[in-house]
């Protein structure tokens, strides 16, 4: 086996040194009746070339060569080449959690820079590195608010990513945390009157997403005012990190739970991604996950260490803030490099391009389909309602190697034939025109079919 660095002679010599006759003697502690006396029934040993072929074949069966208008919590942005050059360095790729600070300064300093940039972008004072993804970050942020307020119930916006809501429901099941939903209004944003009615003196926090699942930017200021007036905390989930380049961050939030996938992380069929929690300094001791702090060594030289470990499971065991241990460190490094490459000006320009492509696309679609929630500000997603079932339209789009918007009826039955479309800087005008054209064609054929029926009836 090519990964094993021993010759048969080495193994012999080692067994001899240990004082054993055969490898089987090493497994003597395992009762004989449980030992496996056959080969595992798994694929035979393959050459590297065969492995590469196997995955190339899988790639061809997996949407390779399609243009996609899907967003909904996973976004297709350009990834600068140097991200992979740098994260492929063995010193980053094959290192462990930086417990031994003296030989982990590279990882530690990069996390410190990550924490800083997340703070700059979100308007928060501290950020961790990292949580599994945006959904678990939101769930852990809510549990943090429950600990901080001493209250237990939670108000959740229906305009939050439906899968994030599902994950929160799973986490909350056995925590004695009742969840109640607050609906969205005709503008696609949290219904403020409904929020006033739903929030109670028992509410620990209100959890919203902005830009929300429909791509609409919430009125965070108004929501924060209501939330804080009731003594609850505001937790804001951000699923599309690139929005932070042009959309004012939810500075009124008490906790921000982010999915940073948009910052240089491949779509990868849903993971690995990078969750982050950011908050105010006063809340830091209830924050879950790894934190890096600046300190000095015995010579007084600046250095970095993992800190505030008394929050964590390896010290506090069942009294820890969370059970999280392994997180998404290498993915956080991708995010870090992405933020460094684009920086202060690039992130803004990048976000502007997303905004422009989306505005153009929304305009094209609005000519034929109906644009929902059109009066509200949006970032790079929009909802189009068609007369025909969007699954049928998408079926035809596939023939043009285009993946259409996400049909919403699975998550929001009341939205009927609506679908969620996304454009990024990588979406071309010609793809937009083709997709909008096919939607227009669908509308025309439904209309003419209807007219035909009406004519026959007349």
């Amino acid at each position, binding site marked *: 086996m090519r990964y094993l660095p021993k010759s048969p002679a080495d193994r012999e010599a080692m067994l001899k040194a240990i004082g054993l006759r055969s490898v089987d003697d090493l497994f003597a502690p395992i009762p004989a009746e449980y030992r496996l006396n056959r080969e595992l029934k798994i694929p035979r040993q393959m050459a590297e070339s065969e492995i590469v072929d196997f995955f190339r074949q899988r790639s061809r069966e997996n949407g390779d060569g399609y243009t996609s208008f899907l967003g909904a919590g996973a976004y297709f942005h350009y990834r600068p080449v140097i991200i992979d050059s740098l994260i492929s360095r063995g010193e980053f790729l094959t290192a462990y959690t930086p417990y031994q*600070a003296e030989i982990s300064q590279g990882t530690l300093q990069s996390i410190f820079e990550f924490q800083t940039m997340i703070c700059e972008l979100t308007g928060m004072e501290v950020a961790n590195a990292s949580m599994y993804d945006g959904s678990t970050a939101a769930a852990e942020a809510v549990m943090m608010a429950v600990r901080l307020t001493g209250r237990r119930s939670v108000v959740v916006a229906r305009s939050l990513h439906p899968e994030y809501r599902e994950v929160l429901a799973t986490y909350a099941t056995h925590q004695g945390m009742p969840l109640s939903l607050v609906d969205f209004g005709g503008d696609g944003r949290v219904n403020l009157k409904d929020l006033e009615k739903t929030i109670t003196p028992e509410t620990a926090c209100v959890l919203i997403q902005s830009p929300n699942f429909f791509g609409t930017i919430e009125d965070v200021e108004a929501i924060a005012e209501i939330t804080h007036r009731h003594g609850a905390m505001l937790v804001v989930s951000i699923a599309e990190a690139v929005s932070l380049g042009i959309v004012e961050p939810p500075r009124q939030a008490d906790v921000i739970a982010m999915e940073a996938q948009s910052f240089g992380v*491949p779509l990868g069929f849903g993971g690995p991604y990078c969750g982050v929690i950011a908050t105010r300094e006063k809340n830091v001791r209830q924050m879950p996950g790894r934190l890096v702090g600046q300190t000095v060594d015995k010579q007084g030289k600046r250095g970095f260490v993992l800190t505030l470990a008394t929050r964590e499971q390896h010290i506090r065991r069942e009294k820890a803030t969370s059970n999280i241990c392994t997180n998404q460190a290498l993915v956080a490094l991708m995010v870090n490099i992405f933020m460094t490459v684009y920086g202060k000006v690039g992130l803004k320009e990048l976000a502007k391009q997303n905004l422009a492509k989306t505005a153009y696309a929304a305009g094209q679609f609005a000519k034929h389909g109906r644009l929902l929630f059109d009066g509200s500000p949006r970032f790079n997603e929009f909802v189009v309602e068609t007369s025909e079932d969007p699954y049928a339209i998408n079926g035809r789009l596939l023939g043009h190697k285009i993946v259409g918007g996400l049909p919403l009826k699975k998550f929001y039955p009341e939205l009927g034939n609506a679908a969620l479309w996304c454009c990024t800087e990588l979406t071309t005008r010609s793809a937009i025109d083709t997709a909008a054209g096919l939607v227009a064609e669908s509308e025309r054929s439904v209309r003419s079919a209807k007219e035909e029926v009406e004519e026959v009836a007349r």
Partner: protein
Amino acid sequence: MKHSTPKATRHVNQNEGLIFEKSSAGKAAWKLPPLDVPEVDTAKLLGAAERKDLGNMPEVSEIEVIRHFTRLSTWNYAIDLGMYPLGSCTMKYNPRVNEAVARVEGIANGHPYQPEKISQGALLIMKTLSECLIEITGMDAITLQPAAGAHGEMTGLLMIRAYHHAKGNPRKKILIPDSAHGTNPATAAMVNYAVENLKSDSRGMVDIAALEAQMNEDVAALMLTNPNTLGVFEQQIHKIADILHAKGGLLYMDGANMNALVGKVRPGDFGVDVMHLNLHKTFSTPHGGGGPGSGPVAIKKALEPFLPTPVVVSKPDGTLGFDYNRPQSVGRVRSFYGNFGMFVRALAYIQANGPDGLRQTTEDAVLNANYIRKGLEGTYDLPYDTPSMHEVVFSDKLQAKKGVRTMDIAKRLIDYGFHPYTTAFPLIVPGALMIEPTESESKEEMDLFVEAMKSIAQEVEEDPQTVLDAPHSTRVSRLDETQAARKPILRWKP
């Protein structure tokens, strides 16, 4: 020992400040293509939601980004540089073909919501990996959704709770041996179970009499790591399972140490009901400085209705798809389907090994640990002389007489060119030195390690201060952790 050892020589590495300290207005590492749609008036589109300023984000050029992160990287130790014997962490070689195949276009850029019709490649990867892991563990079904080991523990306990609940009583507590990893009790708390500690016996194994006394109808499950954190196989494992099962409890196995078992013995065959695997330990996906991991949970048939949604299924037309309609499911534990990129890497590792390679891997891992044990026995105190599997735990008892503790020895090991072993864990061994070489070490590398450890033991006798002041060869030494925690500085400020 001043500037070189048989394993390592000191050489110059570059200084590097924080990226913010290199930033100046007008530098850029990015370039966008010209816009092919009309420009927009941001203020008009966004109104009050428009962001004007991005604060102190850096402005640097591409070469500076490359040098910055390359310089930082050289300050890290890594498996690619040498032996990384962290016990319980399984720091094995991370094959590069895994990285290559994870970056093939359709795999790297597949959207989680793209139609199933054009997701057959990803679904087949998930199905094939699931089948391999089920065969390796001897279990009946699996979920790949959990993102890490601790997340897998939570998922497993949620299923255990749902199983008991369906039988009419969710039960109240989880038994956890005193040798367990901290995630076990932390997880039990997240699923709202009380934790009851279980004592180890004089051989470092579960105390059967104590288990019998503590087991009753309030106990939902025992969370057991096997081999345990001492690297010892629980020889009475079936007896343990019987005691639990007799009172309706379940046996949860923390698969952190599965690297000692693959291809040699299957947990499903010795009474385990639920277990998680760490793809980033046993199945070679890179640790990446702390993640990403992946923590699939394998289960016996009786727990199958409770798997998280969705589940990969074969459809009547022969294609693969996701099944969301599972009324007894514990729900979702993560968005989408889990850390898919890690599934790709783990499957590539299994394919590169095949059945014979995986078995040989396990044999070499156990051989290596026992070789180190033999090499250091006598030099370091061995608190439990029970046979070792894939790791060995010594204590600093002999060195403590000179005032030198496990952390000091660990820090001194850095000067010899090695990453330290795991210190001060498991908690049942005061001053533990927990060493797991994995199968990836050659005899030569391990001989150097044994030599270094012996040399340090000699230094402890002759010149303990050198060890107490270690490391002497690093950029920084013995950072002040107390100050870091007392007055936290968690971000750079201009």
